[in-house]
């Protein structure tokens, strides 16, 4: 296992700047998740690390050795693609053995057998070894792809949305398995996804990418509790964070188009700002400071999303699933003061 450093990586495709001066370090044994919307440059980053794509500027460094001129085969990385990467004309066993049989490694067959069986056991696919890969279900295929990465203990695992084509239920269980395996093997992993739940639940650290720029790097807690921009704040958390345009007047914060007023927590807030309040921090209480009317209820089982209207503002609040509320009901609520996020009008965290 190795650590990876990207230094000022830029990658252009004609006019498009897919990666714009991206620098980041992934520690030895870390599970690093790159999170971002479509076209953010996540896949490009992985491909640059793997050497499948050459950067226009910057350096890729593994353990203090520059990899800029190394071929993909020499970098000793394992890549799990979103789809396709199983060879359909080979059995599961041969697929798993394929990386070990490469001329670089020339592993003896006995050892191959050992390693393949081990990996298959870890991923619970030992009963499938003889099967042709075309006859596997989606979940099984993805397990085999992951298996092909873990058989050879590479320096780094690179995974490009390996779960995104799967059924919701399957995704939940593979997420847990993958995280468990990573923790047990202590492998350095860079995992790409656009699913915030995957990022939050699996990562040691998350890097948020948008349009080729790295916006924030931090632990899931950092990203969730201290988002650097409104973009990051909206990207993580369901339902999405409430963002409220607010004006500051003599130490009070007036949320526009409503009669919600808070006392300004900070001294140095600008006059025009955005407040971010996570739905779970809007608490319905009988003696709450604010009032509003419930306009919509979305019961999700364990919790219920309540849309509360005050003036022209609608706030979302999540409450426990067993609390009864009605549409049209007038309610009082509080906002947890020390969990309010302040952003300037351009979306930067204050």
């Amino acid at each position, binding site marked *: 296992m190795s650590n990876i450093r990207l230094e000022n990586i830029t990658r252009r495709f004609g006019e498009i700047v897919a990666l714009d001066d991206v620098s980041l370090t992934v520690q030895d044994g870390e599970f690093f998740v790159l999170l971002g919307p479509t076209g953010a440059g996540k896949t490009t980053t992985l491909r640059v690390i*793997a*050497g*499948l794509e050459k950067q226009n500027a910057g350096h890729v460094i593994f353990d203090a050795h520059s990899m800029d001129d190394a*071929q*993909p*085969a020499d*970098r*000793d*990385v*394992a*890549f799990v*693609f979103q*789809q*396709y*990467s199983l*060879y*359909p*004309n080979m059995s599961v066993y041969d697929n798993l053995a*394929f*990386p070990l049989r*490469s*001329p*670089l*490694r020339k592993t003896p067959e006995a050892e191959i057998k050992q390693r393949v069986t081990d990996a298959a056991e870890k991923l619970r696919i030992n009963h499938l070894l003889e099967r042709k890969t075309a006859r596997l*279900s*989606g*979940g099984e295929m993805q397990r085999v792809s992951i298996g*092909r990465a873990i058989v*050879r203990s590479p320096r780094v695992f*690179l995974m490009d949305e390996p779960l995104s*084509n799967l*059924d919701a*239920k*399957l995704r939940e269980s593979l997420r847990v398995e993958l995280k468990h395996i990573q923790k047990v093997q202590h492998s350095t992993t860079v995992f790409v996804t656009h699913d915030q739940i995957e990022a939050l639940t699996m990562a040691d650290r998350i890097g948020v990418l948008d349009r080729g720029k790295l916006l924030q790097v931090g632990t899931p807690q950092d990203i969730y509790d201290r988002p650097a921009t409104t973009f990051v704040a909206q990207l993580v958390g369901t339902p999405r964070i409430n963002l409220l345009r607010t004006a500051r007047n003599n130490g009070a914060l007036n949320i526009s188009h409503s009669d919600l007023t808070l006392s300004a927590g900070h001294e140095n807030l600008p006059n025009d700002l955005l407040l971010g309040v996570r739905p779970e921090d809007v608490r319905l209480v009988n003696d709450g400071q604010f009032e509003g009317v419930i306009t919509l209820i979305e019961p999700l089982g364990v919790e219920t999303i309540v849309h509360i209207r005050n003036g022209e503002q609608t706030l979302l609040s999540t409450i426990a699933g067993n609390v009864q509320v009605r549409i049209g009901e007038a309610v009082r609520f509080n906002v947890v003061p020390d969990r309010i996020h302040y952003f300037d009008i351009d979306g930067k965290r204050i």
Partner: protein
Amino acid sequence: MTAATQAPGAPGSPVVISTRVDKVGTRPKVIGAIRAVIAIIIAFIMLIPVIWMAMTAFKSRPEAVSAPPVVFFTPTLEGFASLLTQRRQATTAEIAAELERTDLNWMEQIALSRGQLVIGQSAFLRQLLNSVVITGLSTFFSVTFAVLSAYAFSRFSIPGKDDLLFFILSQRMLPAVVVTIPIFLMYRTLGLHDTHVGMILLYTAFNLSFAVWLLKGFIDEIPREYEEAALVDGYTRLQAFRKIVLPQAATGIAATTVFSAIFSWNEYAFALMLTSDLARTAPPSIPLVLGVGGIEWAAIAAGSLAFLIPAVILTFVLRKHLLRGVTFGAIRKG
């Protein structure tokens, strides 16, 4: 609830797995049978000329030309005998002498029964062999070169790629007859006239443009991720190409092979102009199987039949890949 009963289209599969394949349920057997019958009837109608030709090949001379045509007859190998031999009319003395012999082969016997003597082999077998050699080698070369260049066109960014591809296709735009004369003159000067090498070269060049386009389409369909996975797994590009791309492109290669082979096998215009004797292939010669005294229809039919067989064998050998090729559009991605 009766959990044991099976859902249509998804027998016994765990319910949480969502795939959109298998949208169609099992068809009733009756419909299947009806379809088969219809298919057989259509196939029969389409095959009537071929069947007729096969029948003619086994007819005797008078039967072959009789009007109205005979459908039921005793098969004879007369046609094949005339196809494979050169004969002349025998004198009565010669016939008597022949009748004494006990070591006559079947062709000599047939000739004898018609009062003829076999005086040597005909050129047909050699021409058929020429066809096989020229078709085989030219197909091999054009498919090999085409796979390599199609792969390059599909995977690498080559300067002027689109122009090059168009240029390659444009090779195919001139009708063969237009270029036969210049090529004839060129070949005569270069000493390639009536040589195997010349024909192989020509057919290879001719098939190549079409083969590159066809194969590029197939290779484009193979996701890059397959090779890239092999690259990061520690294989060189050439190894990845051999181990991953080639097996996956089998369908396309088979289809291209058959198309190229059939072109070379059937080619008439160039063969007529550019070969005369040594390298002459079968197509221009079959209609010229002249018998002694009139056109030997049975012999021509026998020649055509023999000519058909290699094509059938090739298609049969590659049928598994071809069928996949034909239904290529229906293959699910991902």
